[in-house]
């Protein structure tokens, strides 16, 4: 329930290709908005102060911390979450590679990892392991460890390169 004197705002934006209009408390974070307002629970809430990367979403093509951006700030913008039914080639290749390499256990960190790694692969077709680790330095995984995750990103990158060359 929202208190009647809670400051709110009307926003309209595009989320995963769909137009969305909503009435949000101005202090609501983007990640709380997509989870509670839209039922998109793929972006997770870990620390709520920017250190873990579980809350990642893509706003106008850039990965952001969903806990450090306000819902009211995506007014007029385009938001993509892990649930999108139009994933990029990078996202798809990463999802397959994560699955095959078992680069997840509980999966809490995985959506954030995939979105961040996808941004890397869009920019850098052949990242080194060090570059992969750098790009994912802001994404915590508390159970799988990072080795398998780096492997999966490497595999996805190699497959995307093969596909581009074919």
């Amino acid at each position, binding site marked *: 329930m929202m208190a009647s004197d809670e400051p709110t705002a009307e926003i309209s934006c595009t989320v995963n290709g769909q137009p969305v209009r909503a009435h949000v408390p101005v202090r609501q974070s983007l990640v709380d908005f997509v989870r509670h307002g839209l039922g998109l629970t793929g972006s997770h809430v870990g620390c709520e102060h920017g250190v873990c*990367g579980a809350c990642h979403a893509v706003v106008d093509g850039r990965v952001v911390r969903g806990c450090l951006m306000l819902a009211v700030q995506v007014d007029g913008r385009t938001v993509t979450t892990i649930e999108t039914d139009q994933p990029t080639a990078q996202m798809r290749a990463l999802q397959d590679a994560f699955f095959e390499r078992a680069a997840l256990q509980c999966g809490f960190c995985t959506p954030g990892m995939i979105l961040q790694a996808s941004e890397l692969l869009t920019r850098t077709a052949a990242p080194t392991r060090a570059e992969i680790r750098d790009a994912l330095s802001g994404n915590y995984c508390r159970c799988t460890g990072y080795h398998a995750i780096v492997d999966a990103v490497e595999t996805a990158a190699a497959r995307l390169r093969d596909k581009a060359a074919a």
Partner: protein
Amino acid sequence: MKPPRFDYLRPQTLAEALELLDRHGGDAAILAGGQSLMPMLNLRVAQPAVLIDINAVPELDRIGRSGDRLSLGGRARHNDVFRSAEVAQAAPLLTVALEHVAHEAIRNRGTLGGSLALADPAAELPACMVCLDAEIVAASVKGERRIPAGAFFQGLYTTTLEPNEILARVDVPAAGTDWRFGFDEVARRRGDFAMAGVAVAVREESKAVAECRISLLGVEMSPRRMEAVEMCLLDAPLGTAANIVAAQSALRDTLEPIEGSEIPPEYRIQIARELLARVIRAMAAPVSGKRTH
């Protein structure tokens, strides 16, 4: 946690933003990238009554060079500065240092002005601006004011910005080919705030150091020029063993490290001394390849 309540304002022009800031002053906080302010709100260590979101203000993120000056807008995002070819050419120190600032997603939102206005002692950009002898341009309803970076940082999280001022841009002297820069830091993990870091700029004339500027991050409460250390490097080729030893010892005598944190002051000094030597040696004998660590 969730942030406390606030009113949210999103001005569409700089004039409107300055007007609102002038009206709300100390009750308001500017929301730029939100990568420091939002954590402070969520942890409830900050409780401003009003947020003035400057993300819709046009032009504030402009990066451009005119003549011998590189201008960086107050809302220039870390990653845009990091990946700017103009910055890499005119102020390569920033490009190298930004690799150490936080993580990709945070650099996608975090801004230069936010970092300088916050003045975290462990932040890279304040120390770099001191090292580059940059000028900070503050705007208010009354007009603009230029502040040399060396006079801007006043202490822990403290600057000379007034509550009614917005950090509008930073003017950095574009480096000539006779300038060389070096930067390195030690952090527990890539992208974490540094335990100590060193920024060095030198200008050489006939193979001797003619001008030198050094500043540190993560060691003292706020960045300043290390003049006593700079003196040790003048009028000689860069990186002689004797000068490095002299500079390291001057550094020890000069530093007033942060006390009372979990990192012992003596340890910070030790890292700073080692980094100073490393950075100078790397500048004297540059190796090809981007990263050596």
